[in-house]
């Protein structure tokens, strides 16, 4: 289940980042992590699943 969750939410976050033209520096800041850590969590699942939920929630409300 964790892998399914991770794949699905990451894919959707990335598609929102592209479609809304999101500045990764700004998104990382709002998530309270460095850009490097942000990229790391999208390459390998983090134990903190709320990170992805937070990112998704921020992206849903993101205004270009």
């Amino acid at each position, binding site marked *: 289940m964790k892998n399914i969750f991770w794949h*699905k939410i990451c894919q959707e976050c990335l598609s929102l980042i592209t479609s809304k033209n999101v500045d990764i520096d700004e998104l990382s800041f709002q998530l309270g992590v460095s850009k490097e850590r942000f990229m790391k969590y999208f390459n390998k699942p983090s134990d903190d*699943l709320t990170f992805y939920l*937070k990112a998704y929630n921020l992206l849903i409300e993101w205004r270009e």
Partner: protein
Amino acid sequence: MGTEEQFAIAWDKFLSFVREYVQKITLQKAQSEKNIESYTKIEAMKKEPTVDNVLKAQDVLISLDSSLKETIEIIKFFNENNGNELVQAKEALHKILTHPLIQNYQETIANEKAKIKNIDLNIVECEKCLNKESFSFRYLSELIEVSPLSENEKIAVLSKAILDESSKKEREIPAKEEPTVSLKELITTYQNLVAKGKIYKEKYQHLLGNKTPQQMEYIKMITACLHQKEADIQSFQYSEEKMMVLLIEMLEVEEIVATETQGGLTKEVSPTKKEEIEYYVSNLEEIIKEIISLDTERVEEKKSEETELDENRILFFLDEKNRPFFDIEKFSNEEQNRIANLFKSLTHTYESYTRGDRHTKFLTKQKCDVAVFINKNGKMCLSYALLPEETILVLQIAGIKKIFEETEKIVRKYSVEIESYRTANLGALLEEQSNFKQELYDRLNIGKEVRR
């Protein structure tokens, strides 16, 4: 009534029908799930009904109603020829947005969800038939009625079901004589927990109130990971999202116990059943404990954010050689202006964070027992720790790309030193740093209002 052999043939035929029926409704369920997903996609289009958003959702729109293809082609044509402002283009856009399927999409999502729930119930009942468990006769009769069996076969199936059920009941009679145990105390504990949980359910209902079906699905997926021990709640750092997960988990466990105890009406059960219910009740207790502890954390966090600070009480965290961790000279004039603004607004930005303006970021998990904030002005950021006596300890100044990394480095390396400021003579330290501060503020052209 026929012979035993006729009963068996009719029963097998009926079971084959049930299997096919399950496959059919499972496909219907998948279709409903797909529909919900599609409607979620057009939600964005409803929120911002622009030509771009309609074109982004075109595949979904056509899959919902193929007759919309023509209208989308019109929109596409005008869009490609810079004619979005023409009446025909606007009319086509209006036609899409006022389409009944799109206008009533929330109602459709609710209908699809109800359909899925109904299909799930049907599947459970069918599986009971297939596994020869105790099933509902009403449901069985309905299934028999829609099956392609002949009238004789229908009667045979029903007769066999009645015969099997009555012989099962006969076999179950001694089981009824097995000792049962009271659920009274457990139900009281459960009801007390539900009452306790209700307080937090109401306090935080706003967190879940405006979530889309997709957001809710992700929250439920996280609770499933927790149940399957694939995730640990202690690793969750984002307090708002953690609260959402805990609330959904609480509701799920509450529902299980309510079903198992028939809403608290069951008085006695077998010892095995009691053990099972005990497990869920203790699970519920753990979840509520976690919610209470998170709530306390959030209240304390909010208090520190709301603290009004005296702008003169700014200290700088210095290294072993009494130097700050940033070099003001290395910043450009524009960056220095932004830094000056950060100093000027340092004491007010807490409030903006509380309001959700997101200019101030709170670092939630640090190996340091002091709250660390980061303020932002354009691409420049300033990190600081909150000390007692409403004092600010400036840790680092850097661009948005570096601030987290560099602040974390300082906090990791100097956590003991930073914590020691909590018991230090802050008045004396402020006095000690007054010259250094004056030099810095002069460099940044900051007025005397922030000097000491």
